[in-house]
């Protein structure tokens, strides 16, 4: 009996850990399909987390918080789209610089707007409530783990089949993949790569922004400096590990989230936090080694000079 509760608790915390990674990785997946190299997810997630808390604080409403999170994510991704697509700048340079910009900007605005250092907590910040879905949430074991969660959790889980349909069963999805795989052919057929690439990057910004909102309004109700703490980079790996396929990305995100949740549990069992914090990154590195063939494209991209 006791073990059962602990297991349910483990999967519950794994679900919480998974949603931000999944949302960001789905965004990265759309970019990957459109042939845009997206490594600004970490910074976009951080900016989204900050904007979500700021919006929620201003309006005392999580709705505006989520809207702010999406808007902040799209604003940063707009800079990425302009730089890489319109100006043909280096996507790696731009990605790194935008990550640092988000880090600097949130670190600057936190004391400037809210007069606090490090962590911003306030009763005005309206967090995302857990919404239990009738009937489904009563299913033993699975119910409380999956069907008693924040609205963004359901959005993220529904996006997996939705994006599968979009990518593989709609004309727009087909053109998007065409732009990524055969840009010249797509252009010959009258499909504008610019439009599709902008769309993909902006969508990834919105999704990574949502990931930030889930982080700062769902998992906790506060903003802490650098609170994305590497999750955006884990999402970059999840895109490749899942071969830019919605189901694969979901599986990869679940794997990393399980590692994070296990870390939490070991922490409860007395293992030092310094070690358990590293667990998701060690698992990510191991996944890289095991599935290393899937990262060939990234290697080509980064060693082409």
């Amino acid at each position, binding site marked *: 009996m006791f073990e059962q509760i602990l297991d349910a608790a483990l999967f519950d915390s794994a679900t919480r850990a998974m949603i931000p990674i999944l949302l960001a990785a789905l965004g990265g997946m759309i970019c990957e399909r459109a042939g845009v190299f997206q*490594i600004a997810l970490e910074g976009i997630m951080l900016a989204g987390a900050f904007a979500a808390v700021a919006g929620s604080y201003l309006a005392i409403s999580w709705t505006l918080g989520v809207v702010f999170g999406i808007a902040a994510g799209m604003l940063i991704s707009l*800079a990425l789209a*302009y*730089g890489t697509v319109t*100006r*043909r*700048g*280096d996507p*790696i*340079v*731009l990605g*790194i*610089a*935008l990550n*640092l*910009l988000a*880090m*600097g*900007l949130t*670190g*600057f*605005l*936190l*004391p*400037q*707007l809210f007069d606090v250092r490090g962590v911003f907590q306030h009763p005005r910040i309206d967090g995302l409530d857990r919404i239990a879905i009738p009937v489904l949430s009563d299913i033993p074991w699975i119910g409380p783990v999956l069907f008693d969660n924040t609205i963004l959790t359901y959005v993220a889980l529904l996006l997996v089949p939705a994006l599968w349909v979009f990518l593989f069963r709609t004309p727009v999805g087909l053109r998007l993949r065409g732009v990524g795989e055969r840009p010249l052919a797509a252009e010959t057929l009258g499909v504008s790569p610019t439009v599709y690439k902008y769309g993909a990057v902006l969508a990834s910004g919105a999704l990574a922004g949502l990931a930030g909102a889930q982080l700062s309004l769902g998992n906790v109700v506060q903003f802490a400096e650098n609170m994305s*703490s*590497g999750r955006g*980079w884990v999402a*970059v*790996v999840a895109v490749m590990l899942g071969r830019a396929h919605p189901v694969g990305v979901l599986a990869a995100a679940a794997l990393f989230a399980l590692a994070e949740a296990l870390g939490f549990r070991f922490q409860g069992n007395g293992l*030092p936090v*310094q*070690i358990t*914090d*590293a667990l998701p*990154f*060690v698992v*990510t*590195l191991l996944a*890289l*080694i095991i599935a*290393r*063939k899937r*990262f*060939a494209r*990234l*290697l080509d991209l*980064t*060693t*082409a*000079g």
Partner: protein
Amino acid sequence: MLERVLNEVGDMSRRAVRSPVTFSLLFAFALAAAIVAVTGGDPLAAGGEMFTGAVTGSGLRNTLGRSVPIIGMALAVSIAFRSGIINLGGEGQMVIGGLAGTIVAIYVPGPGYVIVPLAMLAGAVVGAVWGLLPAYGQTWLRLPILITSLLLNYVARAITGYLVRFQLLDDAVTLTSTRQVPETARMPKMPIFGGVSLSLILVIVLVALLWMVYARSVAGYESQMTGFNMRSARYGGIDVEQRTVQVMVVAGAIGGLIGTHLIIGEALRFIDGELVLAGFAWTGLLVSLLAVNRPIPIFITGMFFSALQIGGLAMQRNAGVSWRLSQVLQAVVIVAVACRLAIRRGERPSTEVSDAESAAVGEV
């Protein structure tokens, strides 16, 4: 004669004005001023405090002091970028090397002239080993250094955090910190501008050394060719794998040196998480990008970014505007330059632009 000189000066200033770097700097400052104004500050007062804070009083000494880690980490990343290797692991290499150097400085007894170099050596060696991991990951297992080196930063944080908390903790203070570095094992200060760390000389030597390596040596030429085009470098008989490993060893070693300097020359205690906080590895990366990975421009740009940060701290004290604005400024400059000129990691600036520029100059 006079006319020619005037023409020269005119050309130079025209080129400087048209340069994307100038445009990007102006753009970044304008954006920063707007951000300060929107968030309720006085941009002019903030800018004034930033300038006077960076160069007057103790500002000059602090600017020189802070330039050591910024220029050092920029040199480390530039070596990798120039060879087309995206090493984002500077932070981890710096932190883990820094702790190794600190351990030597605290626990090995002996006179300063032995312990200080020994601690620096230990930092360099451990930093180099940490750089080797992603290098072999790429050459043996074909794992992109970009992602492995970055993930290893978090692992390095965890390892050093664990060691400081459970093995090296100083019970006498409330911080999660090692003991203080004994007086004999500290990096000496030079009696200029009121005390600048001797490490500044080390950085200047590194700049000169790297300049010579790239200008004169086979190793420098080959690693640069690798950066231009890895495939043709390999075709031309360069052992790309071996160069990758060598570059990562040197980059990691410099990171470890800088990490050690930051403890035995500045902080004197290894406080958990403190080395990461200032973000020197990342500032260094931006400096290297802006300086197109060249040693001497890195020195100048690094000094400038250091002045920006020291000025930013003064601005925080006197104008109540967070110093983090300097980080925003730095990142915006790079975003703007990347958009204007399409700077690339291992390459020189696009020849198209310089051709167009020389054509424009020719017309005049």
